[in-house]
């Protein structure tokens, strides 16, 4: 149902001068609520931004949104597709009222790890006999603008997960930093139809310029290197005919060429049982407090629970984030709990991401190496180290 196949041919590239980002954001905010990475003073976080407030403070947009800086937001864009709590429907007067009041956001500045995480979530929520209607409605309503990272930050391991830190095609529009401008690529029809007219207008008062007038340092286009996708590789310029561009791009990006290997992939051909006791889970999770922060800040963790709230004469049912790190997650009504111990719950988290989701969704791994769980863990449990141990054992 959700089709983000990249059937848009990139005929010409656009670029946006960095001086004009405020106008660009204002344009985005005309149709939808604008969501940007914002510096809250403590963390960088995606927040709904009031463009009028930004306008009053002309020139400080870059401080406020950290567009230019290579920061990882504390949380991902997940909540704009799968909010922490979301009203599904209301039982009212012996009837039921579906909540179709789904807001659309223009989400600006999502990084490739988070875009690839959205691809994982789309596979889970939109594949099979049933689709999750709430995710789907938001997916349709939102407008998503990605932006590549220039540098890896501490604990980033996107490369090991086969994610190109500079590019993902799982968005409507992708921006790539190119000195004093961004290269703009349309990656969906929505991206083209909503921005093309705007960016084509060379006499635009805000001074957007076309690629011809403002040639990027590297001509041509960017390319996706992640293998084993649900979608076909993008057509058009993103293939061999632009080999020279690729080489140039790769040079700028630090010499990474060709397909990235997923060095943390487990073998989906093996039975789940072969991984179940492959390492001493109790030992590697000795310090784990079971706080669940790793699941909340994870861009691919998608588990949920339903919760009812009674109001006078009515009742509302909400879809809420849940966490496999909590004992009640699997507690049976009988009192029996298949995952009674913390290390069993942590094992579920790891194997779900790297074994079970790949088994069920065509090799898609439910981790994009954003590193948030590693950065946020209060006791330093490190999923990278645990994966390395599993893979070493597996190779024995």
């Amino acid at each position: 149902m959700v089709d983000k196949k990249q059937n848009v041919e990139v005929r010409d590239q656009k670029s946006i001068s960095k001086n004009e980002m405020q106008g660009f954001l204002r344009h985005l905010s005309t149709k939808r609520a604008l969501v940007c990475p914002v510096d809250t003073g403590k963390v960088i976080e995606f927040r709904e931004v009031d463009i009028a407030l930004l306008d009053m403070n002309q020139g400080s947009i870059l401080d406020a949104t950290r567009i230019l800086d290579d920061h990882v937001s504390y949380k991902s864009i997940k909540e704009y597709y799968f909010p922490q709590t979301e009203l599904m429907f209301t039982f009212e007067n012996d009837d039921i009222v579906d909540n179709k009041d789904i807001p659309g956001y223009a989400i600006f500045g999502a990084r490739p790890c988070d875009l690839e995480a959205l691809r994982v979530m789309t596979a889970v929520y939109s594949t099979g006999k049933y689709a999750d209607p709430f995710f789907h409605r938001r997916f349709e309503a939102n407008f998503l603008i990605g932006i590549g990272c220039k540098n890896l930050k501490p604990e980033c391991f996107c490369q090991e997960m086969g994610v190109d830190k500079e590019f993902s095609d799982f968005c409507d529009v992708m921006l790539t930093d190119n000195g004093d401008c961004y290269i703009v690529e349309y990656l969906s029809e929505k991206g083209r139809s909503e921005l093309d007219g705007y960016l084509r207008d060379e006499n635009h008062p805000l001074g957007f310029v076309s690629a011809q007038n403002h040639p990027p340092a590297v001509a041509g286009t960017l390319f996706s290197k992640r293998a084993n996708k649900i979608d076909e590789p993008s057509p058009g310029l993103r293939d061999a005919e632009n080999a020279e561009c690729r080489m140039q791009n790769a040079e700028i990006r630090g010499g990474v060429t060709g397909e990235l290997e997923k060095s943390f992939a487990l073998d989906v051909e093996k039975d789940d049982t072969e991984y179940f006791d492959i390492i001493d889970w109790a030992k590697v999770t000795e310090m784990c407090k079971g706080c669940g922060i790793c699941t909340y800040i994870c861009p691919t963790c998608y588990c949920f629970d339903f919760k009812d709230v009674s109001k006078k004469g009515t009742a509302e049912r909400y879809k809420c984030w849940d966490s496999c790190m909590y004992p009640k997650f699997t507690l049976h009504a009988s009192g029996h709990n298949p995952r009674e111990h913390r290390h069993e719950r942590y094992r579920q988290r790891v194997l779900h991401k790297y074994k079970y989701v790949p088994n069920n969704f065509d090799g898609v791994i439910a981790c994009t190496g954003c590193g948030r769980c590693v950065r946020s863990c209060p006791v330093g449990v490190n999923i990278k180290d645990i994966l390395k141990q599993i893979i070493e054992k597996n190779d024995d």
Partner: protein
Amino acid sequence: MYHDNNPYLPMKAKIERIIQETSSPDLDVKTFKMKLLGDESLSFLPGQFIEFSIPGFGECPFGFASMLQDDGCFDITIKRTGKVTNRIHALDEGANVWIRGPFGNTFPLEKMEGSDLFYVAGGIGLAPLRPFIQYVLSPENRKKYGKVNMLLAARSSTDHCFTYDYDTWRTIGDTTIQQTIDRDEPDWTGLVGFPHNLIKDMAIDLSNCYAVLCGPPIMIKAVQETLTDMGMPLDRLYTTLEMRMTCGVGKCAKCNIGHQYICVDGPVFSMAELSAMPNEY
């Protein structure tokens, strides 16, 4: 069937009749005979389940405890154990409730044709097997299957469910029913002891037989071991599992055992399938 393709939206149903199943002091098992309201109708097969909602309290999964009846009703048998089931037990006949489904896979009815069947149930574990038994014993299907044997276990004589069915089932040819309880009681004429200890003495021909087990996990595992010792291959042993679940449609990621989800890949599994799954249920 679903409003706007929203599988989380329940449909309204009416409780037509409530049957008190157990007579032990806590009276904790009841059967709710219900039907969908409006023009919609349910179509389901033995093994499948529904999600049952009480607005403001929540939603729980329950297996169908009967085939669809001529009047459009079906049975759901519920043990009182928590917030939602307490509320359900407090309902009166005529009450409106909300359900969604059917979900899950079914018992392999066609694959089992031509074979004998041996049902082993513990307590309310008979509930999800009952539509299967009804299906097999129905006049149009009875000839397709061989002998039908049942070993029905319960903690005490007052904890057996669906006792009103047994006489009817016994009158259908080639069907035997044995009841057992954990500890002997005065006037009890059935067997005494746990199922796995009794099976060897029951003199059942297991050579062309499928065994279908449902009950507490400990009973399922013990009975499986006994039947395996008696030479039954794992792919002739079936069970239906429970796990805590929310959505019922493979999205919420609660009910997995390894990469399989009880709600969409199950709840019915052969022991051969289960043996390739982590022991986490």
